[in-house]
C-alpha cells in the first residue's frame, strides 16, 4: 500500500532520517592509529544496531564508502555488514565521491526508499588517514603484473630483470589533486585570496566551530549520536578552551607563495582525521512498524562540478553552483531555512562560498541569477559545530552532518536545513532536509 504523497511533490513516498551514529573522530595517528576502515565502520554500525534494536535485522541496503581505501577493501561496506550485528542477508555497496561520499550515500538510499525499491537503508562513510593504503611503485607493479602473465621461465627472468632499485620505494597517498599537483589547502588558498577572506574572519569561524561543538557536547546533544570507541568519548580535535588569541598565534601553512598575505593556519583548516559515521533511513511505514523515531525528511539534493584544472574556478567552490539549482527546483530561497550545515573543509571554503552567494556580479555572471543569492544568517550556520572542531574523516563527514542536522530539526520541531559539502576533483553536493 503506497503512502500518501505530499501535495507539492511528485507522487513518491517520503524517505525519513530515523537516526544516526558515529564514533568520536580522532586525529590521524591518535587513538585509532591501528584501526582499519572496516574496524571503524563496523564500530559505527554496531552502535547504530544497538541504539535502534537492529540485531539480526535485514536492512534494505547499506551504502558507504571510504576515500583512502585499500585495494583489498573492494567490498568494504559488504564486509563491514558481515562483521556487524546486522543480518548477513543485508546487501551493501560502496560509494566513492571524495568528501561528498557520505552525503551521496544518503541521497542514493533516500531515492531508493522514495521509489519503493527498499524500505530501510543505512548510509555512511569511514576514513582513516592513519591506516592509509601504501601502494608499490608503478615500476614494481608493472614488473609484478608482467611476471604473473609470463609463460616461460625465460620470459619471467626477462621481466624481473626490468626491475630497478628505485622501483622498491612505495607510494603513499597524498592530498594533491592528480591534475594540478596542488594540495587541497593550496587550492583553497587561491580561492581564499581571490575572495579576500581575512585571517580574522577565518579564525572567528574556527573559534565558533569549537565553541558550538563544545556547547553541543555540554548539553548532551551528541548522547544519542555518538558511541565511544577505543576509549575516545568526544571528538579528539575539539579544543573547548581555544580562543581567538590562541588561534591568532598560529603560523600560516597554506598560500605562502602567493602575492597576498597567507591566512590559512592549522587552526582554521581541518586536520587529517580518522572516524566513521552511519545514518539509518527508512520509509514512514518502516519507522512506524518498528516503532522508530522520524527526525526529518530527506527532501532533495543536487551535485555540481567546476573546472578548477584550467583555473576557471576554485577547487572547492562547486556547492556554490549546486545550491541555486537546488533552490530553484524546490521553489525555495535562503530565507526558507533554519539551519545551514556548510562543511568546514577550511574556514576559507565556508567564507568564500558565503561571499560568492552575497556577490551580485558573481551571482549574475557565474550562476546566471538575477542578482545576489542572499546572505546566510551566521546564527543559523553550523550551530552544533562542524569539521574545523570535530575533524573531517573524509567519507564520514556526510553522515555526521545529516544525523546532527536531522536531530536539530527534530528538536526544533519545524523548519528546513541545508547541507553543503565540497569535494576533491572540483565537486560538491548540496541537500535539503525538513523537519517532520
Amino acid at each position: 500500500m503506497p503512502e500518501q504523497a505530499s501535495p507539492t511533490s511528485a507522487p513518491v513516498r517520503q524517505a525519513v532520517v530515523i537516526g544516526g551514529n558515529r564514533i568520536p573522530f580522532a586525529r590521524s595517528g591518535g587513538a585509532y592509529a591501528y584501526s582499519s576502515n572496516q574496524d571503524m565502520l563496523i564500530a559505527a554500525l554496531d552502535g547504530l544496531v544497538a541504539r535502534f534494536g537492529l540485531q539480526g535485522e535485514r536492512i534494505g541496503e547499506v551504502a558507504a564508502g571510504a576515500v583512502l581505501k585499500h585495494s583489498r577493501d573492494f567490498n568494504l561496506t559488504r564486509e563491514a555488514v558481515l562483521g556487524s550485528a546486522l543480518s548477513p542477508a543485508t546487501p551493501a555497496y560502496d560509494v566513492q565521491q571524495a568528501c561528498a561520499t557520505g552525503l551521496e550515500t544518503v541521497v542514493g538510499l533516500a531515492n531508493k526508499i522514495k521509489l519503493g525499491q527498499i524500505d530501510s537503508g543505512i548510509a555512511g562513510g569511514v576514513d582513516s588517514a592513519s591506516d592509509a593504503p601504501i601502494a608499490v611503485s608503478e615500476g614494481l607493479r608493472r614488473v609484478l603484473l608482467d611476471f604473473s602473465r609470463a609463460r616461460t621461465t625465460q620470459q619471467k627472468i626477462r621481466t624481473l630483470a626490468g626491475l630497478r632499485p628505485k622501483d622498491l620505494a612505495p607510494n603513499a597517498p597524498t592530498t594533491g589533486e592528480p591534475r594540478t599537483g596542488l594540495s587541497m589547502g593550496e587550492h583553497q588558498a587561491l580561492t581564499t585570496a581571490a575572495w579576500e577572506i581575512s585571517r580574522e574572519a577565518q579564525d572567528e569561524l574556527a573559534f565558533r566551530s569549537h565553541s558550538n561543538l563544545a556547547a553541543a557536547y555540554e548539553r548532551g546533544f551528541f548522547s544519542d549520536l555518538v558511541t565511544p570507541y577505543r576509549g575516545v568519548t568526544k571528538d579528539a580535535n575539539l579544543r573547548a578552551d581555544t580562543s581567538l588569541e590562541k588561534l591568532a598565534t598560529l603560523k600560516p601553512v597554506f598560500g605562502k607563495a602567493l602575492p597576498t598575505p597567507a591566512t590559512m593556519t592549522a587552526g582554521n583548516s581541518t586536520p587529517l582525521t580518522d572516524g566513521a559515521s552511519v545514518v539509518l533511513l527508512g520509509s514512514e511505514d518502516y519507522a512506524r512498524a518498528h516503532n522508530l523515531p522520524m527526525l526529518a525528511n530527506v527532501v532533495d539534493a543536487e551535485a555540481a562540478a567546476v573546472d578548477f584544472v584550467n583555473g576557471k574556478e576554485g577547487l572547492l567552490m562547486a556547492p556554490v553552483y549546486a545550491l541555486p539549482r537546488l533552490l530553484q527546483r524546490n521553489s525555495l530561497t535562503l530565507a526558507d531555512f533554519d539551519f545551514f550545515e556548510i562543511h568546514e573543509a577550511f574556514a576559507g571554503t565556508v567564507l568564500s562560498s558565503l561571499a560568492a552567494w552575497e556577490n551580485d556580479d558573481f551571482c549574475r555572471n557565474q550562476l546566471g541569477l538575477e542578482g545576489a543569492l542572499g546572505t546566510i544568517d551566521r546564527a543559523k550556520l553550523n550551530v552544533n559545530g562542524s569539521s574545523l572542531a570535530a575533524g573531517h574523516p573524509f567519507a564520514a563527514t556526510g553522515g555526521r552532518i545529516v544525523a546532527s542536522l536531522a536531530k536539530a530539526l527534530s528538536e526544533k520541531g519545524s523548519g528546513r536545513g541545508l547541507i553543503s559539502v565540497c569535494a576533491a576533483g572540483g565537486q560538491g553536493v548540496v541537500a535539503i532536509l525538513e523537519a517532520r
Partner: protein
Amino acid sequence: MSEVVLRQVPGLPALYRDAVLLAARRRFRGAAVPLTVPEIRYRADGVRVEARALTAFQHLLGEPARDTLPSAYVHAVAFPVAMSLLARPDFPLPLLGMVHLGNTVQQSRSIAVSERLDIVASAENLRAHRAGTQVDVVTEVSVEGVPVWTGRSVYLTRSVLLPATADTPTPDRPAETPFAPPVPTAVWRFDGSAGRRYAAVSGDWNPIHLSAFSAKALGMKRSIAHGMYLAARMLAQACPGPTDDLRWSIDFATPVLLPGMVAVAFTDATPSGNLQGTPREGKQLPESGLPGRSRPGGAGGTGSAHPDVTPAGRVRTDIVGWSRERSRPHFTGRVERSA
C-alpha cells in the same frame, strides 16, 4: 628541392651518436660548412604507431589512453625524420648543443593509432639571433595524402654566428620585462629521472636530458627536462579531449633543471563574447603583470603562426610555467581549439 626517402624511421640514439662523431670531426678538421639550409627534405611514409608505446606516453603524461594520438606524440613520432635532416654533415648548425626555442603546431583532426603516417621534414628561415643563429624545422604529417598535422620547431645554435648584413641586422636583446609571477593553478614536480622517463616514451635520448653526468659533458649544469615534455604536459592538461582542429604553441625561456619544480598557471583567454553564456567576470586574483607572450628568442621568436585574434567559436587557454625560487619563466604557451 630534392628528397631523401627513409625506408624506416631511424633510431635517435644512432643519430645522436653520429652527431657526436660529426662534432668531433668538425672540431679537428675545421671543415667549412656553408651557412645555408640544405635544399632537401626528408620523408618517411607509412609510419606505424605502436599501441603499447603510445600507452606508455599517455600514462606518463597522465592522459587517458585513447586510441587517438596526443598532439605532442605526433611530434615524437615525426622527430627522428626531422633529426635525420639536422644530423646531415652539410647542415649549417651542429646538432649537438642545439637549443629548442619553441614550437607552433596546427592539427586539423584527431589521428587514430591505427593510421599510417606520411612524414616530411624540411628546414627553412636560417636567421640571426642575438645569441647565435636560429632555424625553423617544418614537419608535416599526412594521412592518405591529406595533411593533418603541421609543426614548426625553432632551434638556436650559439656556436654559429651569421654575418650581419644590411638586410638582416642582428636583432638586439629585447627590453627585459621584469617577470611578475601570476597565481599558480598547478605545480609540476619533476624528479631526477624525469628526463630518462620522457626519453623512454618519446624516443628522444638526447644526453642533456638523461643524467647530470651526460648533461655536464655537453656543458649543462645539470640534466634538463625535455621542452616537449613540458609541451606535452601543457597539452594533456589544457585539452584532455579529442584533438580536432587544434592549434598550440610554446616558447621556451629558461630550461627546467632536474630535479625541479615548475609553478604553472592556466588562464582561460577566450575572448568574451566568443561563446555565448560563458562570460568570465567572476572573482579572480588580480593579474599580476603577466608579461604576455614573452619571446625568449627575441625578435622572430618562433615565428608563431597564431593570429593574435582567437576566431569566434574557439576557446583559448594561455599557460605560463616558471621557477618559484628564481622567479623566472620557463615557458609560455597557448592552446586553441574548437569549443
